[in-house]
């Protein structure tokens, strides 16, 4: 069975080079296109210096730039500054207005999927549904670790979408929820910060056995008299869930885009941590036809010690995607 899964990148992946102005956004788009990942996910608050007042000329400039490289937009990553004021939180009306602002800009850019931060309340999103429908933008709540597909908070959004019968509210899974093995990039940073190798290995072994994080944290902090780096490493386990890949098929009606989070690829183009080899076959078998959008987040784990090469990391991930999709097609 031929899969219609599409490949793309989030500009988030190139945050190291963009931050240091070693690449500009067009360099990122040109590179993505060159590896067949022509769907572009954008973070306007990162990539558009004049945010939130984007002129029509700027919108046209972006569209023309993507067209020059045979690329297209896939997803708009919104933010919501509920704490913009020190003295009080945003009111519900202010939150809805901020989200409406993002829906409008997504629509002007011709983007039909919006990544909604996971902390946004389902009842706020319910109030935004009429705007999303009118502007034809799907609001996908980011299912980000330590939340996971069946977390009660996520199911609240699904419940709202079902009750309203809307096609414009759902989820947007971040593959960090499928952390099967502890990332070597995490381990190495904590070792550089002074974690003892045997304590680091204990934490990794416990993660491998899927022992509840709190047991490991107590063991490291109290019984092993863990130092700052060791306790911090143990605490990462709170955010390192391995959700069941087999369950993702059940949620296919609710998402059209995936943030393909990763921390580092091996030279032979494998992900040592995230279980893509288990997730992608489910997506192919389920006939999912959305975009796998690279979200490289390894830079923050290695930038203290070595140069970051986001392009090479993203390239390797797409070699893996092609391989896993082809393999799954052959089996279906």
């Amino acid at each position: 069975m031929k899969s219609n899964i599409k490949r793309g990148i989030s500009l988030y992946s190139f945050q190291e080079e963009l931050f240091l102005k070693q690449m500009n956004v067009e360099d990122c788009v040109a590179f993505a296109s060159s590896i067949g990942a022509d769907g572009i996910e954008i973070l306007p608050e990162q990539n558009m210096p004049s945010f939130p007042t984007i002129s029509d000329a700027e919108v046209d400039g972006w569209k023309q730039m993507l067209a020059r490289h045979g690329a297209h937009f896939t997803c708009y990553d919104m933010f919501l500054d509920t704490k913009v004021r020190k003295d009080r939180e945003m009111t519900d009306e202010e939150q809805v207005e901020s989200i409406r602002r993002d829906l409008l800009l997504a629509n002007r850019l011709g983007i039909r999927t919006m990544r909604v931060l996971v902390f946004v309340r389902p009842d706020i999103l319910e109030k935004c549904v009429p705007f999303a429908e009118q502007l034809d933008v799907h609001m996908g709540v980011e299912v980000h670790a330590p939340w996971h597909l069946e977390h009660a908070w996520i199911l609240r959004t699904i419940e709202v979408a079902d009750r309203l019968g809307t096609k414009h509210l759902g989820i947007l899974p971040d593959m960090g929820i499928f952390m099967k093995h502890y990332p070597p990039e995490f381990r190495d940073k904590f070792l550089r910060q002074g974690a003892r190798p045997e304590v680091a290995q204990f934490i990794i072994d416990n993660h491998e056995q899927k022992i509840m994080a709190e047991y490991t944290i107590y063991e490291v902090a109290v019984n092993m008299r863990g130092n700052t780096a060791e306790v911090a490493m143990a605490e990462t386990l709170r955010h390192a869930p391995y959700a069941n890949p087999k369950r993702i098929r059940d949620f296919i009606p609710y998402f059209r885009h995936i943030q393909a989070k990763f921390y580092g690829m091996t030279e032979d183009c494998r992900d040592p941590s995230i279980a893509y080899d288990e997730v992608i076959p489910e997506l192919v078998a389920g006939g999912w036809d959305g975009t796998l959008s690279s979200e490289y987040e390894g830079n923050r784990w290695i930038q203290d010690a070595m140069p970051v090469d986001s392009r090479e990391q993203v390239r390797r991930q797409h070699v893996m995607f092609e391989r896993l999709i082809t393999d799954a097609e052959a089996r279906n």
Partner: protein
Amino acid sequence: MFEKYLIVDDSLRSTADGFAFDARLGYYRGLGLSMIEDLAVSIDGQDAPREAVRFDEGHGALTLAEMETAYDRRWGFGEIATISVVWPAGLSAGPRRVGLTERLRVSYMPFPSIRRDEKELSVA
């Protein structure tokens, strides 16, 4: 994240009433100035008073108290801003240890985000 890039190399200079250096925001997106809760500066291990610190992303210097309500201004992603400090003693030439701690109020985080960098810079 981005800690080692917060203080811009070779940017320390004397000013009429103290010193200044250039800095970046330790975050993967830009942020409204009202959500930058603190920019704590130290020089040779000595903390500058909060009232002595000024920030300018290019639209005019603000005190940290003024930043709290600067709702229409942003520190852009990767953009270099100037941090100046009123420091009556001034800085003599030579190497100095400059420290910067940024405290950000990121709405989706349950606690403030703290970024810290410390570098040796020479006064030009």
